[in-house]
């Protein structure tokens, strides 16, 4: 799959070059006069974005996107994306911005622009109850499952290198399943979903071991959308202060919004 990642990266680069063409940057005024905003979301990352029991997009990200629409006073057009096509959709102007649990990293910021964090994802290492796994060092020599291209994939690869045997899966369900069926010794995954999944599968004897990292996520825009960026930051700041963001977080995660650093 390496060629695929590489080709996709090359295409994304091409897409970046394309944005040099006459700027189609969406300013806040353009969105207001159009009356709709196209927001890219994920529908395969519970509970951030899922299909609910009516098969409609739902989840924390979707609620944040809808709240944004309310504050703008425009109609929200949700565009379901997958994690690999998020940046291409954004850079080719197919969406105005994305609210898709996108972790803020300097590498990604070379291509896109992040708002201040509006949520955080907790990356946790899960393993069997009989295994002693309390720190990164304990993962040495183990087979560790991660969803491909995620932050935990990058971190484990960087810190442990060849000391750990990484097994990269296409999505979260396959990663959880792989630990349950014993194809890997441990996995690094979203904490809350993992807790839920392994509670429903007590036969696996699997428990949460330690927190790998807290990853703050930003609402993501193209690099030239300064005007929109300023509004989005204001929106995040405001809803964080008046408790609305916290209420949405409580609704989906049953705990208060973690302390989110700003920049």
């Amino acid at each position, binding site marked *: 799959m390496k060629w695929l990642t590489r080709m996709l990266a090359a295409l994304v680069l091409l897409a970046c070059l394309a944005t040099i*063409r006459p700027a189609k940057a969406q300013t806040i005024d353009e969105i207001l006069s159009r009356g709709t905003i196209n927001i890219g979301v994920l529908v395969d990352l519970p509970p951030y974005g899922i299909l609910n029991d009516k098969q409609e997009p739902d989840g924390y990200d979707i609620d944040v996107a809808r709240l944004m629409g309310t504050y703008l006073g425009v109609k929200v057009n949700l565009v*379901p*994306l997958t994690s690999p096509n998020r940046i291409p959709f954004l850079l080719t102007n197919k969406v105005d911005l994305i609210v898709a649990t996108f972790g803020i990293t300097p590498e990604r910021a070379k291509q896109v622009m992040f708002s201040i964090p509006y949520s955080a994802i907790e990356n946790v290492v899960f393993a069997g109850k009989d295994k002693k796994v309390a720190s990164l060092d304990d993962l040495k020599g183990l087979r560790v499952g991660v969803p491909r291209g995620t932050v935990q994939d990058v971190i484990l690869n960087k810190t442990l290198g060849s000391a750990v045997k990484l097994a990269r899966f296409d*999505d979260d369900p396959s990663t959880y399943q792989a630990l349950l069926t014993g194809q890997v010794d441990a996995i690094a995954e979203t904490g809350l979903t993992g807790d839920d999944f392994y509670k429903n599968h007590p036969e696996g004897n699997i428990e949460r071991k330690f927190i790998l990292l807290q990853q703050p996520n930003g609402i993501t825009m193209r690099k030239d959308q300064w005007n929109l960026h300023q509004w989005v930051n204001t929106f995040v700041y405001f809803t964080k202060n008046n408790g609305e963001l916290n209420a949405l977080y409580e609704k989906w995660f049953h705990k208060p919004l973690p302390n989110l650093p700003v920049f």
Partner: protein
Amino acid sequence: MRQLNAGDFEFLLLATRWTILLSLYAAIGGGIVGLAIALMRTSASAALRWIAIGYIRVFQGTPLLLQLFLVFFGGDMLGIPLGAWLSAILGFSLNAGAFLGEIWRGSIQAVPNGQIEAAKALGLHYAPRMLRVVLPQASRIAIPPTVGFLVNLIKSTSLAAIIGFVELTRAGQMLNNATFRPFVIFGIVSAIYFVLCWPLTVTSRRLERRLALSTRR
């Protein structure tokens, strides 16, 4: 995490509609492109032959996934936004055209040369020679590999998920990511694909038998 419900099955069936429609349009588009390529590939003009060979090499030699990606995002770069539907149809048609063109080229060349010479001796020009003599015989040879390719085409429409097209496989993935019931969901998805592909194979076998009967000497 939520439970599976009846609406989820309906969602899968509705997504099947897109798989069927996309396969159908891709087969029609691919058929048109393929016929043109096959005729160019067997033409007397060297230039046409080389263009067709180049086309086939490019589309058979690069991954379908990237062809779709290029059509979808490339359209925007050139300032012609195509949308997911049109891009998917265009991408699959161009790709299917290369494979069908090569399959049909083989079938055309498998028609005994004596037939073509006899047609020429009767004074038939290119168009009537092809339409009345070569293609009817070639089509019989072409049926099994063409159906084989179409069955594959139906299954490869799942690749359209990369450009945001929600067809059967992608719909299954989305449900699995919400409910974590891979065996139930992908079992159903596989069964639906089977229901789509199997009749095609059966029809092909029947058609083959009937056509074989009509030419038995």
